[in-house]
């Protein structure tokens, strides 16, 4: 019996075990599902509670202060507005639009947060007379304004590694009509379902089975968001299951409004070279130059239509397909009661209304590179490309434009396709680097010659050498000798410098030797004591590059970049006040909190009166010295500068300044072969082309009570009568006037 009973029990145990195993299995599966859902929930949390999107950092130009008296033409203002994607219209402008009214320009400036000072949108009228602003009025009130700060142009961005570009909208900034259209076109049950819509899935499945291929999608907006944010675009069952789970979780965790806002910011709409434009705000700005709040029905329809296939309905590549798709969306909007009949008719007949072409991604690569280098000391590459920083720079798009036009014109003179150029333009009074090019092709983002190409500067060293000599007993009228000189160097070799023209010019004033850039007098004076002083003065500006000081630095064998030369000349032009050249004025975060400011600096490194003497000699260079081309080209205008040429004419330099601007030009070849251009026949010509287009005020020497002015004969340094037409009026320190008199030359 017991055996029998045992036999009978065994079969009964099997189902119980199976049930138990099945129970374990179910429990395990549920646990696994719970863990998996927990994991998905963690992914969602990580995205929504951290920085949901990696935002590119934006680099801004200087904000243009407009005031009566400002040198600015209406064309220049229109160019600036164009860079800021302002749209020219005929009716009264909305924010981000402008119109021409006779000779004036009416613009509706966008609101802008100047990091702590929110400037509201404002309708203005700017009046011009030739090249100046004559008046500025608030169009709404008719009140005259003395000043208005135009929100700055975005000149470039540092994009995340994924190449995504977007502007974020908050929940309240998403226009209701955009939301309604999205729901009408993509997911009409959005407000009813919990993330997935089984009926839509079944309908799509049926349609796809019938067609034998995918012709319809059943995804809700929430599923699309889950796919876009967390999943890959692959078409697999697992991905669909994940998508559904995540959609459910999203709906459980967040409100419909939050989900829709995330969708509006996330969705991919446009490809621009290597940059993927995501979100309606950025796409709207790029396609229509409008903020989303100013989109009209046809614009919304085009954008919403593009969601289905950003490539297929790209309005640049397939304008007709895009137009058909837009009109289909307009029809849906009309059917759903989102449009009145008249509006539907008008919108359907409207052109696409997109810009002619998308703006360049980074049209000023050399400047952007300089900004990035200056930022790298404070911010990592990761921060720059993800944190959505706002970097406010000193870049002046109007000066940059003139520089590029001048460069293009100037390079045509030389007919040397391998000739390269680097140019730096700065305001020497406050250190603002306003414009920069580092390649003859200004939009080519390659080697940054303006910063990186270290080339001998030749006679560009002479103004600082002259300053160093004036620190001793010499004055501009001191007699110097242009005679051969032999110098035994520390390695025992003999150095025999020569003048560029290989001739000797005898005795003359120091002024005369300087303006003609004769080498021999300066080498002689340098080895007699000026060399040490020059090295110390270079060191003050942090441009002394060698521990051992060779006499050859007297002739500019020291290599510098154009940017470093600009710093050297900034001090000279600014009466000896060192103001570090900078591109960055401030950096703020996404919330407009200022993270960093670069204050205006001004260190007095050199004696003003002595520097004025150097400046006077540099005016002489432009009047009657190696750069007398300037006196011919710009008669009646004062400029100061210095030419530089290196051995075998491999480098051609000119550095010069007007009342505000310092411009340094370098010409040369990457392979360092001779270019057969001197500073005078090469860089100076290009410099003049740039300055002519830029326009400039004459350079004026500062008044300094410690200086006395006398006319001298530049040939021998002797005093001459004021009425002597061949005399040169020069400044002298008090009590150190020339002690000889001379006949009028």
């Amino acid at each position: 019996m017991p055996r029998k009973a045992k036999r009978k029990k065994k079969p009964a145990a099997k189902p119980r075990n199976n049930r138990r195993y099945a129970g374990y299995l179910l429990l395990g599966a549920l646990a696994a599902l719970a863990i998996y859902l927990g994991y998905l929930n963690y992914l969602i949390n990580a995205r929504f509670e951290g920085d949901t999107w990696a935002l590119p950092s934006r680099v801004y130009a200087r904000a243009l202060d407009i005031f009566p008296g400002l040198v600015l033409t209406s064309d220049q203002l229109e160019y600036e507005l164009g860079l800021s994607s302002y749209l020219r219209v005929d009716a009264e402008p909305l924010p981000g639009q402008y119109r021409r009214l006779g000779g004036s320009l009416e613009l509706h400036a966008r609101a802008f947060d100047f990091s702590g000072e929110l400037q509201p949108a404002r309708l203005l009228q700017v009046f011009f007379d030739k090249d100046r602003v004559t008046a500025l009025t608030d169009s709404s009130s008719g009140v005259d304004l003395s000043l208005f700060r135009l929100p700055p142009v975005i000149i470039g961005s540092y994009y995340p590694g994924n190449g995504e570009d977007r502007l974020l909208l908050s929940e309240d900034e998403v226009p209701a009509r955009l939301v309604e259209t999205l729901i009408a076109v993509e997911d009409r049950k959005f407000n009813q379902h919990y993330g997935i819509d089984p009926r839509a899935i079944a309908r799509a499945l049926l349609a796809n089975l019938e067609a034998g291929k995918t012709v319809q999608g059943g995804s809700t907006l929430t599923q699309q968001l889950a796919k876009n944010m967390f999943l890959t675009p692959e078409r697999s069952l697992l991905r669909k299951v994940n998508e559904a789970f995540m959609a459910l979780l999203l709906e459980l965790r967040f409100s419909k409004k939050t989900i829709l806002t995330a969708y509006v910011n996330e969705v991919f709409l446009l490809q621009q070279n290597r940059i993927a434009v995501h979100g309606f705000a950025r796409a709207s700005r790029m396609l229509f130059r409008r903020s989303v709040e100013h989109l009209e029905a046809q614009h919304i329809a085009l954008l919403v239509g593009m969601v289905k296939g950003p490539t297929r309905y790209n309005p640049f590549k397939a304008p007709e397909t895009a137009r058909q798709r837009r009109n289909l969306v307009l029809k849906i909007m009309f059917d759903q009661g989102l449009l009145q009949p008249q509006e539907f008719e008008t919108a359907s007949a409207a052109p696409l209304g997109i810009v002619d072409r998308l703006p360049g991604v980074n049209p000023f690569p050399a400047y952007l590179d300089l900004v990035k280098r200056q930022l790298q000391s404070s911010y990592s590459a990761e921060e720059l490309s993800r944190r959505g920083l706002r970097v406010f720079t000193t870049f002046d798009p109007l000066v940059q434009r003139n520089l590029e036009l001048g460069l293009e014109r100037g390079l045509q003179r030389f007919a040397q396709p391998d000739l390269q150029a680097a140019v730096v333009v700065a305001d020497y009074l406050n250190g603002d680097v306003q414009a920069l090019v580092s390649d003859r092709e200004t939009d080519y983002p390659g080697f940054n010659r303006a910063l990186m190409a270290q080339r001998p500067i030749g006679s560009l060293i002479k103004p600082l050498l002259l300053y160093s000599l004036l620190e001793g007993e010499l004055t501009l009228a001191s007699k110097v000798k242009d005679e051969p000189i032999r110098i035994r160097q520390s390695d025992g070799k003999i150095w025999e410098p020569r003048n560029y023209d290989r001739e000797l010019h005898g005795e003359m004033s120091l002024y005369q030797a300087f303006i003609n850039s004769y080498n021999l007098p300066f080498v002689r004076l340098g080895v007699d004591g000026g060399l040490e002083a020059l090295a110390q003065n270079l060191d003050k500006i942090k441009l002394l590059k060698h521990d051992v000081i060779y006499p050859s630095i007297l002739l500019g064998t020291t290599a510098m970049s154009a940017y470093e030369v600009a710093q050297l000349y900034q001090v000279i032009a600014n009466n000896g006040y060192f103001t570090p050249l900078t591109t960055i004025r401030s950096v703020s975060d996404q919330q407009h909190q200022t993270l960093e400011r670069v204050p205006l600096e001004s260190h007095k490194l050199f004696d003003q009166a002595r520097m004025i003497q150097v400046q006077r000699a540099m005016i002489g260079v432009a009047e009657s010295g190696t750069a007398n081309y300037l006196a011919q080209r710009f008669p009646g205008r004062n400029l100061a500068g210095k030419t530089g040429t290196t051995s075998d004419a491999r480098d051609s330099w000119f550095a010069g300044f007007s009342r505000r601007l310092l411009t340094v030009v370098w010409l040369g070849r990457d392979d360092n072969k001779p270019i057969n251009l001197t500073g005078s026949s090469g860089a100076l010509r290009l410099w003049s082309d740039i300055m002519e287009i830029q326009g400039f005020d004459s350079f004026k020497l500062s008044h300094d009570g410690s200086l006395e002015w006398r006319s001298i004969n530049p040939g021998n340094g002797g005093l001459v009568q004021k009425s002597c037409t061949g005399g040169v009026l020069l400044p002298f320190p008090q009590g150190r006037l020339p002690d000889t008199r001379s006949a009028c030359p």
Partner: protein
Amino acid sequence: MSLNRLIILVTLVLVLGACTTEPRFNRYQVPTGQTQPGQSAVEELQGKARQALEQQAYQQAIDYLQRAIKIEPRNPHSWHYLAETYWRSGDKRRCIEMVERSFSYSSSADDLEQANQRLMEQCRQI
């Protein structure tokens, strides 16, 4: 004749005298101190900076003054106010440097010259 008129007359005579005797190819001119374009814009910014300074909003004052300096960098008053802002905020180095710049653009007959001298003393005492 008031002192102001006398100064103007003497300046005029000196400037005209210099013009007639200056050698032909020396075209540079001594600054004449004309009213600069944008003076009202600069004055507006200086006024805002003064208000910000009174409210001890030093950074805001600096921002306004840097804008004023960008418009007209040779205006000694902007540099003076900037120096004063640094003095009030206790930045000795910048205070001295900005007064030096103000000195370099002001004339010795100017009231500002004396104000600068006083301010320089105050800067040094920080």
